[in-house]
């Protein structure tokens, strides 16, 4: 049997890169899309790539504009394809917007958390119009080198800029270990019967953000945990975040060596308060999604962070 040729969009980004490596490690798939010459934003290149693959994973992450334009080009070009290759579309739990409590795939999609959530929902709507698509809505990816929910958090914890947030950290931390996410994507590529369905991806019984920070800080040796006052949180998110974000962009643009301090953004703060709990039982049932134990996942994330700095 010949290998399933999987085109990964967003292969230069963290999840896409990892996905390519995972696909290559299988004995049933090969990976396209991470060749340096390939530019998925170029319509001709994308069209050629779509013609040369058996399945696609849309793992494009980034700004609302990047998400929208990637989805637009993908589904416009994939629509007319006669072969109807499977597309696994990586969305986000932000499509549920400000919903609280236990949320499964039938819950209303409010996408009322700003441009990012609106863009994700718009992209999902395009995906839904394509007949052989599976939508995955992961929570927060964590694990070795995961930039947002492990590396950034580790840096903030070590700097004692994050810690016990009191009421501001009572939200649920819908973690998904990176390998579990990748495993679910692989599974979604190979199950024809789930076409047209959406899946939440997160660990069962997620901790609160306060619990997550306490456990991760302990794994990192960043203890004692610091109580972060409301006043300080305001200062971080309202006063420090904008210039730090600019510094980050400038440093990246100029390819400056070294790292700018991590940003504690208003959206991170909002996420930490948000009492939404993803119900992923469907993914466990139909995708065979695995769940790494939090203890092991955090130990690995911490070990990798400490080793890599």
């Amino acid at each position, binding site marked *: 049997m010949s290998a399933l040729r999987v085109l990964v969009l967003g292969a230069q980004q963290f999840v896409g890169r990892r996905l390519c490596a995972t696909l290559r490690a299988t004995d049933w798939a090969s990976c396209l899309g991470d060749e340096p010459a390939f530019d998925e934003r170029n319509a001709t290149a994308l069209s050629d790539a779509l013609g040369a693959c058996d399945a696609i994973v849309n793992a494009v992450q980034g700004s609302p504009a990047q998400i929208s334009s990637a989805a637009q080009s993908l589904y416009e070009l994939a629509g007319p394809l006669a072969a109807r290759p499977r597309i696994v579309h990586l969305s986000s739990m932000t499509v549920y917007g400000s919903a609280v409590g236990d949320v499964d795939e039938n819950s209303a999609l409010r996408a009322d958390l700003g441009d990012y959530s609106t863009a994700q929902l718009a992209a999902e709507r395009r995906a839904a119009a394509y007949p052989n698509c599976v939508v995955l809505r992961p929570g927060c990816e964590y694990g070795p080198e995961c930039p947002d929910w492990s590396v950034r958090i580790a840096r903030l914890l070590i700097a004692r800029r994050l810690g016990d947030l*009191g*009421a501001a950290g009572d939200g649920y931390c819908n973690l998904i270990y990176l390998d579990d996410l990748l495993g679910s994507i692989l599974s979604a590529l190979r199950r024809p019967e789930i076409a047209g369905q959406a899946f939440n991806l997160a660990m069962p019984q997620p901790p609160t953000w306060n619990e997550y920070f306490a456990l991760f800080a302990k794994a990192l040796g960043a*203890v*004692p*945990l*610091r*109580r*972060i*006052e409301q006043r300080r949180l305001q200062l971080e998110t309202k006063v420090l975040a904008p210039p730090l974000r600019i510094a980050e962009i400038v440093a990246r643009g100029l390819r400056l060596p070294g790292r700018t301090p991590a940003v504690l953004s208003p959206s991170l703060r909002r996420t930490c308060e948000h009492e939404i709990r993803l119900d992923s039982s469907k993914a466990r049932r139909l995708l065979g999604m695995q769940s790494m134990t939090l203890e092991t996942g955090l130990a690995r994330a911490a070990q990798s962070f400490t080793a890599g700095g």
Partner: protein
Amino acid sequence: MMHIANELPENSILTADICIVGAGAAGIVIALQLIDAGLEVILLESGQIGPSDQAQALYAGEVTDEHLHSPPHRYRQRRFGGTTTIWGGRCMPFDAIDFAARDYVADSGWPFTLQELLPFYPQANQLCEAGQFAYTVESAFDHPLRPMIDHFECRNFTTNTLERFSCPTDFGARYGKKLRSARNVRVLLDATVTALHLNESGQRVVAASVQSLGGRRFSVQAGQFILATGGLEVARLLLASSDVQRSGLGNAHDVVGRYYMCHIAGTIGAIRIERPLHAVWHGYDISDEGVYCRRRLALRPEVQRAQGIGNFIARLHHPRITDPAHRNAVLSLLFLSRPLIPYEYAKRLHGDERSSLRAWAKHIGNVVTGPFDAMAFAWHMLKDRRLAERKFPSIIIKSKANLYSIDYHAEQQPNPNSRVTLTQHRDPMGVPRINVDWRYTRGDVDTVTRSLALLREEFKQGGAGTLHYDPATVEFEMTRYGAYGGHHIGTARMGTDPRSSVTDADCRVHGIDNLYVAGSATFPTSSQANPTLTIVALALRLAARLKQASARGAGFGTVPT
């Protein structure tokens, strides 16, 4: 949802499955547990967000002996969050011995053992924001701690148990948002319950009469009622609700309001520890979760039994602040900042005694001769206490001469003659005010006297130093500031026999199917431990019982007629 009662239409009748009266630690915790439990809940709170003189005045009452007990409007708060808006946050569970019937402590014994509360303590600890439920050095820390006193072996006291400190968490501020956004919980502020009414058979509460400060009256009918109004106010409401049972609710045997306990606490003596300075550590250790923890000298249970005395713990403490002879700039600074310290804390820090001009001058002298110490201390208090959300819990002064006093906290034994009763006077809502007649017993004096003697012996034998105090002054010192403020215990005690208790082991008032009490009023004995962690654990237990009962159905939420 959260509303102000004064905005309700006059004479409204509200209905719910469960009506909780009082939004302090106990009431808030029960309401939190009932979020999304499939039950309609009303939480009635007499106060509002923030202090109000008018609401606080509803707590006013009388005391039989002003020297022995502070006025009833002190040491409690009539506002959303209750007294947790000012508490100190010291947490520790009760000890196994506290639950036992001890033949040398009259009327001791709980209707269950410590095992019954163990499943609830860890969550209680979290709700109090006191970290994990680990109360020994060994279980709380994965690295060795410096000893309290190096090479000090104790036979009669343990030195490895901890007290852990809450932020201190104001339960209203911390959990108000959760309650506000809960769909099945209605919080009503400025809603003072003035009486509970029974049906004719006297077996069920049918309604609570409620009033706002603005005079709006309404009533709440519910399937179950929970009184969570604090140890003194529980007795007041039970006694004042006398329309069907003349002696008050659950008071057929004249037990409501009796057995009133606080704790016996004080500071005494002087001890110079015969060790190098670095070999003594009486301050806080910080756990990995960032929680302040402190070790104590705890009287071993087998010694309590052998001596026939109550539970007792002690800590090394700074010398008495009021006496400038300590020549410590920081202590004198504290003395001079007396007007800035709230009454509840100033009382034990400074006492009520008036100091002479000479003493004031000496205190000023102490500050002037140690200005850098005083400034460093002021900065520490500003940074780590005033501005911090997790506050440095208390004043710790490292003595350069290794000179300390002994600060102790002891069990007060149950005494039926120590009691809360109603007076002829009524508050503006027509509810009779209370009189507090707090009394201690010989047994209480014995607990402190013998424990101190054992401690003195212990220091001597261990070669750690000589504890000097005058045994003849023990009783005077232990009552110098009267009953320990803020711990109001035993006025609706749990038990199996209605002749000597008010509630059963489920905290349900004997003889009334749907009335429960939450809080330290139900504790049959007082332990050495501060009460709030156990109040919260019991509240969690009660909430779990109510949820189980509602799952069984059986007319649980039915509004009685």
